[in-house]
């Protein structure tokens, strides 16, 4: 008896996923619980298990195209010996993810897949030309009977596609949607301050050996900056807030989002309760999140619920920039590079490592003076870290 393997729903707002890689080959014997494929969702990659034992067939292609939740991506034929156990039990219609409880697929999704598995209708010549040009026939529109793709359709597709069209990854689509929504809905205004990083550097050098002993890594300036930002935010509730209907939700805790790039995907893992974490704890958390992002194992939960975001492009040589607020948050801090800059100190010109910090705020809930007070407070804290217990 054939058992469907369908794309599981592992997240409340998940509508589709991408098959990143099959872990089994067409026609392979699989056992219930074996890892069948890696599934990439908006936020992470997870492993999907076999719902039954048997021979697996009709693997959906790995082509980067999003597949709707509930769509059949393979069959498991349980009619052989390997499937006997599974046949005895009621066949599970949905593949199990290791991370989340599967949800029954919508019925309509199955029809979509049947079409997919009917295969591409194309003439031998069209196939030959598509092979020669490296074109996936699945994306070519067929003009022949029953949608058959003929050579001319491949040529037309090639002509139309000389400028490469690259589909957005699931992550990129979410980012695109949210950024457009923010730029459209939130009236942004920007405040920039140049902050002397001399003291923060000294503070880092001061605490580095101790933190290295505690957690095995040295703290980065960026994480110490995040640590101080979190502390300062507790005194500026409007900047650690979100728009909610006609009100403003003021958050008790600072959940600090840190923007990280992963091969062109923008991900924002969240340092939870950052206002009550020590620099060592925060550094430890940061390393865990960063590694999870890089290894594509970051869980959706680690990227939810941020209340304020820091984006740092200093390492790319950017002096100063303004960022788009990560909705529904009220502000985002854009950090440029630290440059030795001549500044006046006690009537003399001296070189100091100066960093440019730009705050983008949502003017619906943050006014100019509120933001300016936060920036002044932040500057004082960054330039006098020794006044804080953690850096004493």
């Amino acid at each position, binding site marked *: 008896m054939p058992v469907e393997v369908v794309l599981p729903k592992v997240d409340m707002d998940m509508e589709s996923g991408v098959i990143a890689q099959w872990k089994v080959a067409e026609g392979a014997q699989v056992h219930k619980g074996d890892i069948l494929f890696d599934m990439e969702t908006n936020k992470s990659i997870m492993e999907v298990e076999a719902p039954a034992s048997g021979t697996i067939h009709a693997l959906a292609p790995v082509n980067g195209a999003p597949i709707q939740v509930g769509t059949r991506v393979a069959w498991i034929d349980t009619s052989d010996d390997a499937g006997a156990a599974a046949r005895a039990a009621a066949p599970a219609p949905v593949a199990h993810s290791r991370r989340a409880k599967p949800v029954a697929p919508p019925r309509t999704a199955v029809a979509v897949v049947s079409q997919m598995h009917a295969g591409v209708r194309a003439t*031998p010549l*069209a196939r030959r030309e598509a092979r020669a040009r490296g074109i996936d026939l699945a994306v070519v529109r067929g003009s022949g009977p029953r949608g058959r793709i003929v050579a001319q359709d491949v040529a037309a597709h090639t002509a139309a596609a000389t400028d490469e069209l690259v589909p957005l990854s699931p992550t990129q689509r979410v980012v695109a949607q949210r950024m457009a929504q923010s730029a459209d809905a939130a009236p942004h205004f920007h405040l920039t301050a140049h902050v002397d990083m001399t003291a923060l550097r000294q503070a880092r050098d001061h605490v580095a050996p101790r933190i290295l002993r505690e957690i095995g890594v040295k703290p980065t300036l960026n994480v110490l900056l995040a640590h101080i930002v979190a502390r300062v935010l507790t005194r500026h509730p409007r900047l650690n807030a979100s728009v909610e209907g006609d009100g403003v939700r003021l958050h008790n805790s600072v959940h600090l989002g840190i923007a990280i790039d992963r091969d062109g995907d923008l991900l924002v893992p969240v340092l939870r309760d950052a206002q009550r974490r020590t620099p060592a704890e925060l550094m430890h958390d940061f390393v865990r999140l960063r590694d999870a992002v890089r290894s594509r194992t970051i869980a959706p939960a680690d990227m939810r619920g941020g209340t304020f975001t820091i984006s740092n492009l200093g390492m790319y040589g950017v002096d100063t920039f303004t960022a788009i607020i990560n909705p529904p948050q009220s502000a985002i801090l854009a950090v440029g590079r630290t440059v030795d800059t001549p500044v006046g100190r006690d009537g003399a010109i001296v070189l100091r490592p100066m960093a440019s910090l730009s705050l983008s705020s949502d003017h619906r809930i943050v006014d100019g003076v509120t933001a300016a007070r936060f920036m002044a407070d932040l500057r004082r804290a960054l330039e006098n870290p020794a006044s804080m217990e953690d850096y004493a």
Partner: protein
Amino acid sequence: MPNDVAPPRAAPAAVRELSYAEAIREALAQAMEADPRVFLFGEDVGVYGGAFGVSGDLVHRFGKERVLDTPISELSMAGAAVGAALTGMRPVLEIQFSDFVTLAMEQIVNQAAKIHFMFGGKASVPMVVRLPGGSGTGAAAQHSQSLEAWFAHVPGLKVVQPSTPHDAKGLLLAAIDDPNPVLVFEHKLLYKTKGDVPSDAYRVPLGKAAVRRRGRDLTIVAASIMTLRALAAAERLAAAGIDAEVIDLRSLRPIDHATIADSVRRTHRLLIVYEGVKTMGIGAEISAAIAESDAFDFLDAPIARLGGADVPIPYNPVLERAAVPQEPDIVAAAERLVRRGEA
């Protein structure tokens, strides 16, 4: 019409316009003049001049010993041909209507085709059978068939189907030269058609098709009278913007797969037109051969066949026409193929 023929052996020969029947008669005369072993026999080929007038005055030119009337017994005629060929003669047998060859199957299929192989190459059967075939004369089911595919199925036989006076002469001379049994399927409707025929004794090689018309959009493979219909259809298709290539098979066995495959690689579409019954016919063989060949990858549409209907040829002239492919059928099939409405 252009022909892929061997160059003339002698100085440029005079070219006259002859009918298909006259061209065959000229071939017979030249063969008998050149080789005393050649003789013609069959029902009414002598003083009557042949049921379709092909042998004409040959009996007067070569005498009753070389142009022989036979009793009405195809089996004994075919047996006589096999015996004569085995003993050193070059017999040319006319079967009055090709349908009657069914009576001679034993001698042709079980004897003539196999003797060379069963005697280890020590004997051969250089006989020629001429068979007027095809429909269109109102001669009904027992006098109108196209049975060439039956013989093309038999190893040891060769089968040709000339479409022009030129090829009727050249293929017949090549058939008489050949040391194996060759069946020449002539078409009754073609006997009066005319064409340029050189006066010398040229040969058209067996097993070699002719590209009668070059085209880009599809390949129409035909033979015998279907070649003429395909060429007429091609002219109408050209007016409609479809450029058809027309291949005249000329030989069914051996069949010239290379010429067909080469054409399909260029045009990407194949339509096979034949008068014999479509089911299990030569179209199936050609279609399968292309699908098995390297040319498969160059097909941009399913291979299409137009063949005779699955019925005995009707006597009613309207139904008789409807039972085999006609020019408008070829035009329509080609248009469907090229305009992608072939589903």
